[in-house]
């Protein structure tokens, strides 16, 4: 039973030590990432206090079923990303260790300002990781938007501190009813816009195209799975559980997130190369997941979160691997590449079909719950969601059909008409693709084994009073 603070302290210690012993930093990175991936299974629920001071005064780390699930997913994804991105580390080992600490910290923290500090840690290490592809202007746009976002977030929590006098999440949750409505609307809008930058919601996601579109085998999977899961989990925690917002503000945010979903999917329809299709699909999925969190459908949101994270892990690692081996990811030149890499093609196809939500795959179970939650609120949201997923289905099927069947439009698809490209050193990618594909198919038929701890996580996100009693009554 390890203390969850170790998930933050050990990677930091390894980071500080690794700048002194440059040669060993690779070993540090993989060792610590393995430690956190395994260690995150052995944490017990509860509120862990830093420095011995009771929550409203000190900072506490909260581990309930929700953060426990997110921790496991994030650490496993981090380790898989390292396996995929081994060739593109480019002296980023220390930055990755700090990212690992930041990611673990932001999921567990129970204090608003501490969340700001960890968000900033993740953001700065993301700028550095992204600039390893030397697309400096896109990274600069990301930096400007990220900093504006976190400043707005800070402005929001300071307004709440000004009125409620506390920074602790649990304390603020209990003090929310006394705060007047106009201050609440102002503070929540700023907090939402602050979190929306990292969660890729509409007005703030112009940076995503440049960063995800030019990603290499390390940053691609890292941003599209680890960062996406964390940013959605933070919005889930803050707006799902702590800051209960009244309905007309929810509808304002939901129009934003649904517009993100629809625009991103239609932009993906129009794009022609592999990575930008996956980029827009990630933005679209992020919009869908945040809509579900805001609507209160935590179970559907978490299933879609898990589904999107692992599907994107497979798809982005294959896409960036093809780009790094052939310097070109235009779909027409890649026609028929899966004929040469059968296992990768199979994993990619299963993840894509599961993301669309076709039966026999895990995504379908997510789609059912999404529709149930959407129908509970009103008639229009499910219509938008279905239109969006039709568009998503179309461009994924077009992608899959082209990548499986070489040959021009008119004639039979034959063996030699395929592409000249091959994917180099893709062994780990195909293993991961197959494992994730197998899990998706098995979970698609009988989703019990994967879903019941997602159910526990969703319930723990649902009721605020167990959260309050565990924090306030805590040591």
């Amino acid at each position, binding site marked *: 039973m390890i203390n969850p603070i170790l998930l933050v302290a050990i990677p930091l210690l390894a980071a500080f030590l690794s700048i002194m012993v440059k040669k060993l930093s690779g070993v540090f990175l993989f060792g610590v990432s393995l430690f956190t991936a395994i260690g995150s299974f052995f944490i017990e629920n509860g509120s862990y206090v830093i*420095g011995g001071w009771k929550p409203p*005064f000190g900072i506490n780390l909260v581990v309930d079923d929700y953060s426990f699930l997110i921790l496991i997913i994030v650490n496993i994804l981090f380790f898989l990303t390292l396996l995929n991105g081994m060739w593109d580390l480019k002296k980023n080992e220390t930055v990755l260790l700090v990212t690992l600490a930041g990611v673990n910290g932001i999921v567990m923290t129970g204090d608003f300002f501490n969340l700001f500090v960890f968000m900033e840690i993740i953001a700065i290490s993301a700028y*550095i990781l992204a600039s390893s592809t030397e697309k400096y202007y896109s990274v600069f746009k990301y930096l400007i938007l990220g900093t504006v976002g976190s400043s707005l977030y800070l402005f929001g929590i300071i307004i709440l501190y000004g009125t409620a006098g506390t920074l602790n999440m649990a304390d603020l949750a209990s003090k929310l009813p006394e705060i007047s409505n106009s*201050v609440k609307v*102002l503070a929540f*809008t700023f907090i939402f816009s602050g979190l929306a930058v990292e969660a890729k919601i509409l007005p703030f996601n112009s940076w995503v195209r440049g960063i995800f579109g030019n990603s290499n085998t390390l940053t691609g999977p890292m941003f599209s799975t680890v960062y996406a899961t964390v940013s959605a989990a933070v919005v889930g925690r803050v707006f799902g559980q702590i800051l209960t917002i009244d309905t007309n503000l929810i509808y304002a945010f939901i129009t934003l997130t649904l517009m993100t979903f629809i625009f991103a999917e239609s932009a993906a329809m129009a794009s022609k190369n592999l990575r930008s299709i996956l980029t827009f699909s990630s933005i679209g999925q992020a919009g869908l997941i945040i809509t579900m969190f805001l609507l209160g459908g935590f179970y559907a949101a978490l299933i879609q979160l898990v589904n999107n994270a692992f599907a994107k892990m497979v798809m982005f690692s294959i896409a960036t691997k093809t780009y790094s081996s052939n310097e070109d990811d235009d779909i027409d030149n890649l026609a028929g590449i899966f004929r040469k890499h059968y296992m990768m093609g199979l994993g990619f196809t299963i993840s894509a079909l599961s993301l669309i939500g076709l039966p026999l795959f895990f995504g379908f179970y997510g789609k059912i719950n999404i529709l149930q939650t959407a129908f509970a609120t009103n008639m229009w949201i499910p219509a938008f969601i279905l239109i969006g997923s039709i568009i998503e289905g179309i461009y994924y099927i077009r992608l899959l059909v082209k990548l499986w069947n070489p040959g021009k439009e008119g004639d039979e698809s034959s063996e030699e008409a395929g592409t000249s490209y091959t994917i180099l050193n893709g062994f780990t990618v195909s293993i991961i693709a197959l494992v994730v594909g197998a899990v998706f198919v098995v979970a698609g038929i009988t989703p019990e084994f994967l879903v019941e701890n997602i159910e526990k996580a969703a319930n723990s996100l649902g009721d605020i009073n167990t959260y309050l009693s565990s924090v306030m009554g805590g040591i």
Partner: protein
Amino acid sequence: MKRIIAILLTVAVGIFIFTGLYGEDSDFKAFGEKNISDTVANSYVDKNVDADRESPESGSANVVTSIVVNYRSLDTLGEVTVLFVSALGVALLGGFLKEKVTFSVKPGFILKNGMKIISGIILITGIYIFIHGHLSPGGGFPGGAMIGSSFLLMYLSDEEFKTKITAFKIMEGTAGSLILIIGLAGLSIGGYFLYNFLPNGNVGDLISAGIVPILYVLVGLKVGSEISNLLGNFLNGEVE
């Protein structure tokens, strides 16, 4: 055209903030009329956060330092990591440039000789500030910035000046790891990460407030070495 949209948008945000904060039904505490009793900070000031701790809980005269290093110590740890990552980022980004930066304006006589006198003094005051962090205002971060500025003076005064970069790296690494080791020691001894396991002594004299001064000295050293290393990378442009 872009400017008009920018103006309109800014004015809209401004109106939104002002009506939200200073509208009639908003209970955002106006400037100055807030009383401390209804905020969390009240018990920081009276030092009675935890009843079963012995009398002067945090021991440090400067209440802000007690908050930064003792009550909300994870923030400072995060803070130090932010600076560590940005220094590292500047070093990694610097690798792209491959050539040394030359000044268009050569350092004049006054700068060269003046630097010899002043930089020593700045260095001493910087060290004084972060050693007395828990007594007088200021602490690890301002002290570290002063050390950085003294090294900046040295860089500006002559171009060939190039401290051994690895010296800063090692100081930065050891200071950072020491902070974490103290934290983990607190975890093993007191059961909480960064627990103040040393005696507090009485408020006001130098050796007091348990691990607070030790942590703040380490933070000061780390910040100082990071900033000078950062400036070094800006000027010389090649990675160590």
